[in-house]
Structure formats: C-alpha cells, structure tokens
C-alpha cells in the first residue's frame, strides 16, 4: 500500500536534469470504487486538504475526492492568493491564525514549494471611521498575539512607495492596519501539494466526476431527505458510490449540492472578480487593500499586478466577468497609485463565492447525519483552506465539531448568534 514518490529537492532537480529522467505523476487517475468511508464533494483546496488531513492526522484513507472538472478549477485557482490572520473577532482570529501557521510550514510539510511570500499586508483607511475599525482589529489582534498594528501615512509610504499619500485626494490615506505576517502564496501549488499528499495515502482523486445527487434516508423532507435523515452515498456521472459520510466543499455551488441533501443554506452565490496586468519590473513590495475603494493589489514575483475587488452586487453563476469591474478597479487603483496608468490589464477572470450574512463560514455537522458542510467561504476561502481541512478532518474523525469551528456551526442561523466579522466587512481579503 501507499505510493511513495521521490522527494523534491535541489539535489533531485540536478539528478533529473543530468539524467533527463521524467518526474512521476503528482497524483494518479484511480479507478472509482463502489464505496468509500468518506466522499468529499469538491476537488478544490478545501476538499483536498480535508482528505489529506483525514489520512495524515487520523489514518482515514478510504476516501474519495470527487470533482466535476479538474482539481483546483474553482475558487482555489481563481483567488488572489492572499493570506492573513488579522480578523476582527476572537473566533475568527484564532481560526485564521492556525491557518497561517499551516501555511508557514506547508512547503516542508508537503515537500512542495508553495512560494509563500511573507511580504506584509496593508489595509488602508480613508476615513476616521475606517481608521477606528483598524484600531479595533489591531487591539483584538494584539490580545490574540497577532502581529498587527495601525500605522500612519508616512509609514504606509515606506511600506509601499508608489501609494499617493497626499492629503488632498478624494480618498486620502489616513493610515493603515499593518499585518507583517500576511502575504501571498502560489495558490495552485497549494492545491497540487495537498493532492500529491493525499495521493501518497492512496486517497482517490476522481476528476471529471460530477455529483448528481446525494442519497439520504429517513429525513423529514421530500424523498426522505432533510433534517433527521442519514446519508447513504452519492450518485455521480460515473456511477453510484455508497458512503456513510459526505462532505460538501463546493464553495460557490454549495447551495446546489446541499439542496441534494435537503439542507438549505444561508448562502447566495456571487462572482468575485480578479485581474492581472502585464509584467513590469517589481515596484510594489507588499499587499495593499482598500476597503472603501473595494480593491486589493499585490505584485507577483513575475512582476504582474494582481487585482481583486469585492463581490459583484448581482448574484449569478456566470463567471465570464464584467467590464464595470475592470473600470472601477482601474479607477480606484489609480486613486491610490496615479503613476501606473500606463500598465495594461492582461486578463480578467471570475470565481464564485458562497456569501453568508455574517461574513463567516458554515462548517461541521448538519441536521442530516453523515452530511457535513465546509461552505460559506465567501471571499476568504483560500487563506482558510488548510485550517478548514484540518478542522473538518477532525470533525469527521471525532463526530463532533472541532473547537476551532464551534462558532461556525449552521445552527447559529436558526437560534444562536451570528459571528461578528461583519463589523469589519468591506473587502474581506
């Protein structure tokens, strides 16, 4: 059992270079079995991370990750790869900070360089109320041991010299929340790393396999689905799979999958758009976010500026993007950096976000036994991927929601309290 590929290292590179030998597959295309202990719907970062930690931390390896397309084809490959942990609420901070830990050690844990660039993260404040929220976040962060503080315009200028800090602009920069541990990661590599790591444990990654239905019996809803029911498996485009546990990790499509189990979600699907420019010599050393201008920007090691915004106002499953996104984006970026109008936009794209009312995820067990959700990731699913996988794996293995995700349970929408991240809403990247 087990598939042990050669370790990646400079040495291995040189050896392959000299022998011109081929590298083995990072993950295989296995034959689908008729039953698994766990079926994870969605072969993105969250699904693959969950699978990896099931095997790595809990020895559960009879697991299938099914995806209707190719792995990492959804939000995992479309986000702007920003990681940070300077959230507003204690529960948010604790959760995302664990996520940052996992990113820090990921390259060695997964033996794949995910190119984590810890270049610092600036959230600009253009109004005194925004500045107050920054202080609020900074204070909460400090108490949680997170390195995050409010800095003034001059320090902002030092951190990102191309920003215009003159006071007479329409959106003057009054200060910023500075979060040195934040940065960017090569998002696709994270997906591949977890896929490779899961494949090592013989976990089945089933690409081009679409889930058509979730089989539930004994539920109170139509067809025995819904609350009180119990999961028995899934129907896929390549045949049925029986499984006692089915996990929904489908982000923008979460509602569609959840409806198959008869579990309604407090989610609406909105596109989140991003864009990249042609490469230019590197001049922007850090990640810059402006909440009130709905823009965030960083420069890749290849010299491209990567832009994002907040989700589109009109809910849709279309991912072909809009012109107005690029117009507003460019206008706002040039408010911040008037000197770069000659840079050219090279490509725009769009991903689907599963937005919740309180800008926090919906995780863990549901009223249907054996059906778990890891959804509601809105615009912050990438930075949470590893820790979501770790905590979902724990939840699956132990049967009870992991402590780190206690605040994110689905029941909060029926009786309990929403999570307070909304207080720091705006652009949540």
């Amino acid at each position, binding site marked *: 059992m087990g598939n042990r590929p050669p370790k*990646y*290292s400079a040495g291995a*590179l040189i050896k392959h270079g*000299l022998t011109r030998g*081929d*590298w*083995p*597959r*990072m993950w295989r295309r296995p034959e689908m079995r008729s039953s698994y202990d766990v079926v994870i719907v969605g072969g993105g970062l969250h699904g693959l991370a969950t699978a990896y930690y099931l095997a790595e931390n809990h020895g559960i390896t009879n697991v299938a990750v099914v995806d209707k397309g*190719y792995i*990492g084809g959804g939000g995992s*490959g479309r986000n702007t790869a920003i990681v940070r942990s300077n959230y507003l609420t*204690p529960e948010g901070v604790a959760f995302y900070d664990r996520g940052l830990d996992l990113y820090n050690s990921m*390259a060695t844990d997964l033996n*794949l*360089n*995910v*190119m984590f660039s810890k270049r610092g993260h600036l959230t600009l404040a*253009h109004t005194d*109320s925004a500045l*107050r929220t920054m*202080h609020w976040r900074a*204070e909460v962060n400090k*108490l949680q041991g997170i390195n995050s503080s409010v800095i003034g315009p001059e320090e902002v200028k030092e951190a990102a010299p*191309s920003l215009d800090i003159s006071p007479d602009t*329409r959106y003057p920069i009054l200060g910023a929340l500075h979060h040195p541990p934040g940065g960017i990661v090569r998002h696709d590599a994270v997906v591949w790393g977890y896929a490779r790591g899961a494949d090592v444990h013989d976990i089945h990654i089933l*690409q081009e396999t679409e889930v058509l239905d979730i089989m539930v019996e004994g539920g109170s809803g139509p067809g025995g689905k819904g609350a009180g029911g119990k999961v028995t498996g899934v129907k896929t485009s390549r045949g049925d799979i029986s499984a006692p546990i089915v996990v929904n990790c489908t982000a923008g499509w979460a509602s569609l999958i959840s409806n198959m189990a008869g579990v309604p979600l407090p989610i609406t699907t909105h596109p989140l758009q991003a864009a990249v*420019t*042609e*490469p*230019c*010599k590197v001049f922007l050393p850090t990640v810059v976010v402006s909440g009130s201008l709905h823009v965030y920007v960083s420069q890749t*090691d*290849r*010299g491209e500026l990567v832009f994002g915004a907040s989700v589109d106002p009109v809910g849709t499953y*279309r991912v*072909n*993007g*809009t*012109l107005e996104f*690029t*117009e507003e*984006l*460019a*206008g706002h*970026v040039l408010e911040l950096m*008037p000197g*770069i*109008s*000659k840079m*050219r*936009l*090279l*490509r*725009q*794209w769009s991903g689907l976000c599963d937005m919740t009312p*309180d800008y926090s995820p919906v995780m863990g067990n549901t009223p249907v036994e054996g059906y778990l959700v890891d959804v509601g990731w809105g615009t912050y699913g990438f930075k949470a991927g590893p820790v979501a996988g770790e905590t979902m794996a724990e939840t699956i293995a132990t049967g009870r929601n992991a402590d780190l995700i206690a605040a994110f349970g689905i029941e909060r929408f029926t009786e309990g309290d929403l999570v*307070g991240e909304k*207080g720091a*809403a705006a652009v949540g990247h």
Partner: protein
Amino acid sequence: MSNRLPTQPGEVIDRSKSLSFTWNGRAVTGFEGDTIASALAANGVDVFGRSMKYHRKRGIMTADHWDPNLFLQVGDEPNVRAGSRKLQAGMVVSTQNVWPSLKFDLAAANQLLGRFLSSGFYYKTFMRPRFLWPLYQKVLRKFAPGGEIHWKTSKHGAYDKRYAHPDVLVAGGGPAGMGAALAAADSGARVMLVEHYTELGGHLRWGDDAQRARAAELGSACEAHPNVEVLVDSTVTGRYDHNWIAVNQRSHPIAPERLVKARAGVMVVAPGLIERPYVFAGNDTPGVLLAGAARRLINLYAVRPGEKAVVMTANEEGDAAVADLDRAGVEVVAVLDARKGEGIVSVEGKGRVTKVTTTDGRTLSADTVVTATGWTAPTSLLNMAGDRPIYDPSAARYFSSGDLPPNLLVAGGVDGDGSTDDLEAHGRATGALAANRALRRRHDRVSQTARANPPTWEKPTEMADDRTPLARSAHPECYRSSTHGMVDFSEDVSSKDLVQASKEGFDSIELMKRYTTVTMGPAQGKLETVNAAAVLADANQVAMADIGTTVWRPPYSPISLGALAGRIHEPVRRSALQDWHEAHGASPLLAGQWIRPDHYGDAMAEATNVRSNVGLIDVTPLGKLDLRGPDVPKLLELVYVNKWQKLEVGRVRYGTMVAEDGVVSDDGVTGRLGENHWLMTTTSSGAGAVWEMLEDWLQTYKPEWDVHVTAVTGGLTSINVAGPNSRTLLDRLVEDVDLSAEAFPYFSVRTGAVAGVQNCIIWRIGFTGELSYEIHVPSGHALHVWEALLETGADLGCAPFGVEAQRILRLEKGHYIVGQDTDGLSKAPTAGLGGLVKLDKTDTLGLPELKHAYERDDLPILVGIQTVDGTIVPEEAAQIVDGDSNRIMGRITSSRMSPTLGRSICLGQVDPSLSAAGTEITVLMADGKRIKATVQEHHAHVDHEGARQRV
C-alpha cells in the same frame, strides 16, 4: 547596414518624412508609416530583446501586434508592441528584460542551467532551509520580465471614455468585416466598424495589387457611408453579457487611449486569422519568422528580412512569401513543401540563424527561415459569450461550435476559407442578417422606452440565416517537427516542458497551463494555444479534438489602466454653506460623499463657546425626507421601534430604526408639521438607504397606504443654533413664532421666517445638550440666514463650530452614534433603548428579533465610562479586558477630552456583567498599559437630566 528596399507597390511608409528616434541610446531614423520594429529592422537590427526565463536573444517573428519578441520600452511606457506601434519622431526606445545590456546579458547564464530549470522547477526546491527562501525570492523578483513603470513621475493623464449605441458593431476591418459593415449600413443599421490596425483592409493590405485595390475600394466606401462610424487603431477588447462591448480606441486626438462602451444590437465577429509558429529546435532564433511577417516587412514597410532564406510552406501564404522574398532580392535557398511532407528539423545560430537541417537530411546555410504552417482562429470574443470552439483536423484549426446567442454572428476567416470575393460576400450576407436582427431589436427598444415616441417605421420581418458557410480548405496538421522547440515564446515554455508536465499529472490543458504558464503571457494564447494543445494531445496519445482549449478571457488585447479608469467621477456633495466654510478657514472633513467643516481652528474652544454662548453648525448632510399623507403614522410605526400615532402637530420625536434582523440601522428626529405633513431626519450616511427602504415597504408591502416620500436633504440647509444664548439670538431674527419656553417647548417644531426668509422649519432639540434650535432653511437663501445669525449674534458670542466640536458636545451629553457606538451586530438592548422600544406592536421591522433580544441577558451594553485618571483619554476601539487576563469584555466606542469637565469621557460596549453603575473595569491602552475606569450611571457625562436644554 540598411535593409530598406526600393519603393514597393503597397508600401505604407512616406519616404519624404523621415523620423529620428533613439534605440538603446543610439540615434536612428525611420519613415512615417513605419512601425518601431520595421524602422529598426530597416536599420539592420536583428536582436530586439531577451527571452523571459533563459534570456535567449530574440528577433522579429510575426512583425505584428502579437509578436512576443517585440516588447519594448518607449519613454515611460513599458511593453510597447513594436510590431504594431507606429513610429513617432523623438521616441526613446529601449530593450526590456536585459541586464546589464542587450549584447551582454548576465542572466543569459540561465541558458546553461536550462536543463535544470524545467517548468515548475521552483515548486520542487528552495523548501529548506526555510530561512533561505526569502533570499531566493529576492533574486527571483529581480528577474521579473517586462518594462519599467515610472510610478514616481507618471501621472494619470487625459484618458477618456464614451458610450455608443450601434445597431451593428463589426469587429475586424478586413474584407469580411468591411463587407458586413456596408451591407448592414445599406439596410439602414447604424454601424460601428472597429479595426485593430491603423488602416482598414486586414490581410489584403500586404497582398497583391488586386487585393490592395479591393481593400482601398471597400475602405473608402466604409469611410464615406453615412451609417458607418469607422474606428481604426482600435480593438474590441471584450464582449460581455447582453452585448455590452468594450472598444479600446488608441491614438484618439484627445487621449492616448479611449474606452468606448457600446451596447450593440448585434456584433459581427470578423477578426480574420492569426498565423501560427512552427515548433522545432531553435525556432526562436532571430531570423526565424512567419510567412506573414516576411510579407508585411517587404510589402508594407519595404524592409528586406534577410539575405538567404529557407521557406517551409503548407499554404498559399507561404507560397506568396516565396514570391515576395524573391522579388525583394532575398535568395530563397530552399522551399520545403509541408503538403508533400517536407519540413524543418532544426535551426542553429546564436544571434541569427546560420544553419537549417531539413527532414530530408539536408543541412542548408541561411540567415532566414520562413514558416507558413497554419492558423489560429482568434475566437476570443465568441468564448466570452460561452462558445467552446471545436477542432477540425482536415483544416487543422478550431472553429466556432455555432452555439452562439442571436446577437452574435461570425464572418470571414474564423468561419472558413475563400477568395477575397468569397470573404466579402460572406461578410455582406452576415451584415444583412445582423442588420435585420438589430433593427428588429431597435424597434422593440424604441417601443418599450418611455421617453421615446412610438416608432414611425415598420418592424422588419425576421430574416432566416441562409448564409452559405465558407468552405474549409484542407490543410496539413503541422505543429511540431521531430525535435522540441519553443511553444510559448513570451513565457519561454518549450514543447519538452509540456510533455513533462503531462507526465507529471498536469494532463488537462487547464492544469498544464497553470503548471507551465503556457499561454499565460501577453499574447494570451493567440500564438501558442493550438501548438500547446497539439503537443498535449501527442503526449496523452489522444486526438486533438479531445483536448479542448483554455478559455479566452477579456481583454482581447491588453488595455491600459488609464483607459479603463478614464475620467474619474467621484462626486462630492457640498452644502450651500461650504464655500463660506472654506473661506473662513474650515479644515475639510470628507464624510461619505459630503465635504464638511471639521473645525475652524480650535475645536475645544468651539465646544466651550457653545456651552457658554452660542454656536452655529451646518448639519445639512442630515438626511431629510418630506413625508405626506394620512398613513404616515402607520409607516413610522412600522420602521421605528417606538410609537408615533399620538404625536401631535407641532411636536417632534426621536426614533431609532432596526433592520429585520434586529440590528440598529439608523436614527433621527421626525416632526409633525401638519396633520398629514411630516419631516423625517436620518443619519447622513443612512439617508439614501432609509429613503429606498421606505419606498420598498410602501410599494411592495403596503401599497394601499397613502404616503408620498420626497427627499429634501439638499433643498433644506440645516443650521443648528446651540447654546444658552440661542433663544436670545433667534428672538432677534425670527418673525411670527413665539420662542418662549412655554410657547415653544423642548421637542417642538414651528414654521416661520428667519432673517426675512419665509418657510423655515425650526425645531427645538438638543444633540449638543444645550438649549438649541435646528433651522431648516430653503437652500438658495441659506447663506443669507447663516450670515445674518453671525452678524446679529456677534455681541452674544455667536461663532461657527465644526463636526469635531459637535462630537465632543454629543459625547458629553452621552448621545450615541449609530455605526460608531453600535456596530454591525448591535441589537436594540445594546444601544440602551429599553424605554423606547415598544414590543406590543403587531408589526414593526425586526419585531421577532427585538422580542428575542429583550429575552436575553448576554448582549453587550452601551455605558458611559470614565477613567480613574481623568487625564488619560483611552483610544477609541481600546479593548476592555478582564483584569490582567486577555479576555475581552468590551471596548471603548467613543472617547474625548471634555472641555466642560476638564477630564476624559467615554462611551463603551461592555459585557452585561460589567454594566452596573460603579463597576470598575480595566481598559487596555494601545501602548499596552492597563488602566482602571468606572462604569457611569448614565450615558451622559454632563447634565443627564437635561436641565440645560429644557430652559
């Protein structure tokens, strides 16, 4: 040496106008009509730059907009397409991506490491030791390709935009596109014809005499047609839902780039075809170029591409290139006919081709290699509409699946092959069909649009699509030779890299793209996609049709951020008094859309003056809604937590709104001016939302209620007159209103004349905690009233005060601010609205949440807080913690130094366990110090029983 040929019949250069510019510091000259690249090539330049990863020397390959080797820095503009950008006198042109120089480039050492730098190599190393990675990364970032952006000195510049509403928009000004434009225009459609290059004509421009003649005829016909607007040097960069179309118009007289946003009835996509490179060892050596490139250089720019050429041809373009080369005096050493299975195996040469090895084993010496191995159909605009092109092996290229919305039609080369006449005919048929659909749509639009008169013309009957599709000529599938070569020139990705990636599991085109970055460069796949798919199909041992292609996203070709931003419209709202404030030293405060006076120099003094004399503040941004109708009280009961039915005429009341989720959303004072006439005020930022919310309930929930809502925020300039002397002051200026305490008590409203201005609404409220009146003046007369108050009140110490002073005063009085002292989750109990909220109503927004909230005892409570040491002002947002632990028990939401009390004062949200008056709490200061503070009995720090304002 000069490569300029004698006059060519179709040349577009004007030899009478020579332009001088510099190339890497060296003075050179070209002619008007030259592209930067043709001028340099004419001057004997072979090497234009270095490749991204291996820093290999690169020369002209496609000699058009897509040429991946011709990205140059021109002045402060990076990544200029030298293959299409017209030369201008004085241009400062330099190479990108070399260090220290083009001739001697240190990074070229990467070539030796090539075998170790296979694609994705960086994923496999630098993992440990971890602390070294940031250093590696610094080095990587140094090697970033592309030009320099001069962010220090460049300015936004005069970019521009406009809207357009053509019936038919034609993308592409070749024979098919021009035919489509003319046919559509003849049918009465308004047409916008967009051509990527600076002249109409498409591939006819570098064709034979007959082709050039036809191009000229069609071109002038388009220019002359009253229904056609021609945009050259312009690109359709994107097609979005409902035919929202982006056109990037370059070199417009008033802007370097101008974004035209067109809502087109129908778009005709006629971009023609883009020639494809051939993959073989050494295919990126300077001197290897496409047949089209050779022809453009010779026929358009009179530039000899080389001395001795080997030509590999699979089609007429290649055959024509042989003739052109011959005519240009280039010795054609050999013609390899791919249709007979002949071809190139590899090419050698450092700065320029020297040796060519052919499939029949010959080794030829030549300095130029010309390939004509087929086409890529740029189906980008179709992809954007959801079309997924299908591969046709017999024609060796992709075609539209035909699954297109009716407002999108394809004409010309993308549809198939044919003579100039065939292409034009196909265009004309398509144009006629487009016009028919577009005019039917316009007829609908005119009939449905309220402001338009009913159409005076007949809606045309629907025309069937009976166009004869263009034939698909047979074409050999030539993608890669027996050797490996470059597939993506701008990304330095070779066919070997792609084969390896597939073996590693990146065996779908999308995964391969992400892993190797193939097609992710500036050409976005226009040159690389098909070859990449072919190499992958080969590696996977499957048919090319089963590979699919990556999805082409906007923009079709890169567009500047400047053009996308255009003229930036960020409205600022100004009260009728803002000019006065600015003239009197007010320091501006941007609050939402409004610009307001923060203070006039000394906020503390302004506040003190209000407490001791009288002050004026401009509070115009307060949202103001005029409400009329018998059912207004019902509406107020619905949207406010408190009751309104019994409010008498002449009285005002404070109210708080919560949303359906029970969260405090807005607040303000609303007064009853007459039996059926009310004036509601809202927060400044909430004004718009409250208005829309009221309309929503009235229109969709209680349409039977008679209520008219009119926004009057800017129409009434609101002046708050506050301070012990305010009544005395107003007595001097207010006519026909008795201001005495008995006649005009606290929380009342009167209407009268102020300083001779009729119809002023005056109400008596006390946000500042002083005796104060808020006067709402018709804005055209506001300045008069404001100045009158100051003049008349001079002896009473009347002076203006700004927002900061008001913040101090309201905090002394303990009035909370929605959104500052409450947040996105604050329910009514948190705000301390206990007395106000009436749960015995049958319907009010968020009622079940309100009931639930008041059943709970765990919600945070807003309290007044004073630090034990009054000299310390805790920062707003400072956390309240549990003693020495880090457990958060609340936070300071507002804090100021109180001039009245001479000590610091705060409002804060605390855990209910700390909410009792006298509770000692710990506040964690930003500097880490923990200080003691005490919870107060009241929110108000000054005059909680309201004696000062009730006089």
